[in-house]
């Protein structure tokens, strides 16, 4: 009962702040509302007992992605009080994409066998603390995707360094 109320409260916060993020005419406010949305998602993860995922969600999405977004906004020349409209002219493509995305989500929700899923996840979370579980899974069953992701990150790092050093050479 309490969990249900909490779930609806967090879900309400997520949806409301997501809407505010899209509708707000001030890009800085949008970034702040994005942080609230992601925090709400982290709270939902925590409610499901996945504290590790919740922590990572806060650390990476808010601590890194939103902070970088705000950082970039701060570096732009936009003056306070000057509101840029956040909608463009492409209404019909937007409607089609949103409808398709909504269909996909609804289909996924309907197709899932929730009873067994919930039973499985409850059994898993009560088994052990899931941090160790995630670590073990990452280095056994999912070691190839894990390594692929790390190679991708390494490539991105090298790319960033290459771009920065190219600018330096051009200055000389």
């Amino acid at each position, binding site marked *: 009962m309490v969990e249900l109320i909490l779930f609806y409260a967090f879900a309400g916060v997520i949806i409301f702040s997501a809407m505010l993020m899209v509708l707000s005419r001030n890009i800085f406010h949008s970034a702040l509302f994005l942080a609230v949305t992601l925090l709400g998602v982290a709270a939902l993860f925590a409610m499901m007992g996945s504290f590790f995922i919740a922590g990572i969600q806060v650390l990476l999405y808010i601590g890194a992605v939103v*902070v970088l977004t705000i950082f970039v906004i701060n570096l732009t020349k936009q003056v306070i009080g000057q509101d840029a409209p956040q909608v463009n002219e492409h209404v019909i493509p937007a409607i089609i994409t949103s409808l398709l995305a909504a269909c996909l989500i609804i289909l996924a929700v309907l197709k899932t066998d929730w009873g067994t899923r919930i039973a499985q996840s409850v059994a898993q979370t009560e088994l052990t*603390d899931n941090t160790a579980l995630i670590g073990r899974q990452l280095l056994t069953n999912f070691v190839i995707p894990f390594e692929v992701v790390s190679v991708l990150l390494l490539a991105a790092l090298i790319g960033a360094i290459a771009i920065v050093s190219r600018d330096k050479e051009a200055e000389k």
Partner: protein
Amino acid sequence: MELIKELFYNSGKPLGELYTWAHGIWAGWGAPPFLLDLIFQIIIGVAVALVVVLNALWIIYYDRKLSALMQIRKGPNRVGPLGLLQTIADTVKLMIKEDINPKAIDVLSFWVAPLIIFVPTFAVFLVLPFGKGLIPADLNIGILYVIAITGLTVIGILAAGWGSNNKYSLIGGLRSAAQIVSYEIPMMLVILSVVLLSGSMKMSDIVAAQANYKWFVIPQIIGFIVFLIVGNAEINRAPFDLPEAESELVAGFNTEYSAMKFAFFYLAEYTNLFLTSAIGATLFLGGWEGPFLPPIVWFFIKTYFVVTILMWIRWTFPRIRVDHLMEFSWKYMLPIALLNLVITAIVIKLV
């Protein structure tokens, strides 16, 4: 007498008994149990808030007295005996001052920034082990929670810098964000070494892994030194106080703030100093463990030991130059922390 002794030395047991006893009575009344849990949580929250405020009052006085000692001055000595009431007078002054809101601010960011900075600071106390069993919530992800939550304060600093619509605030906010984000990485690597040693991210397990005076400061001496330097940078104190460098930026991101809003920044700064020290004491100095005295006393002694080191650094080093700041993190702190982590992992594997 026995109960009082137990309450001080092994707080978890009598508190747990009190909890079950209260729940028994509560069930007798037929009330839903979550309400009692809520009441308990509110009591714990108020207690933590009291610790935060009282500690900030004392730590500010301590900072001023210590700096006076180092600069051969007297420090606060007029209000109350030895100037002990000085901070209280300052707090009252801040509370009754006019709250000035400049005309050109961005209202939402300006108002919400002190809260975004203060609330995560307060939330970190959730996993701080004050004594044996005296921990508000012993989360599985303990130390990860601390890292994740403290990362949120950057948003508050950026919001303050941007919302003030002032060039000094903006530069201060940007500097602070860049600084905290880059110094967070060596911090995480150092904490990861400790987690490797203890085998758990739970705060109580980290303390338990250091039982019998096998404190992590000995195998992790490099880690502890890096932790002190990086921790000092993360809380924006000298020699890393670039975000509020008075000589170049007036007061940095909080230039436009006054009265209670400014007080929040001030409170958050000193609470962060306490928190960093408390986490350092827990990770490296064995937490609340110690002979004779109750665990909670040892916790505060160790925390204030680290606080003193951080203040000592603050009042004896000049401010680092802004172009050296990033270099120092990326070229020195990060490789040292990374090497420390690799060596720790190898040694654990071999031994």
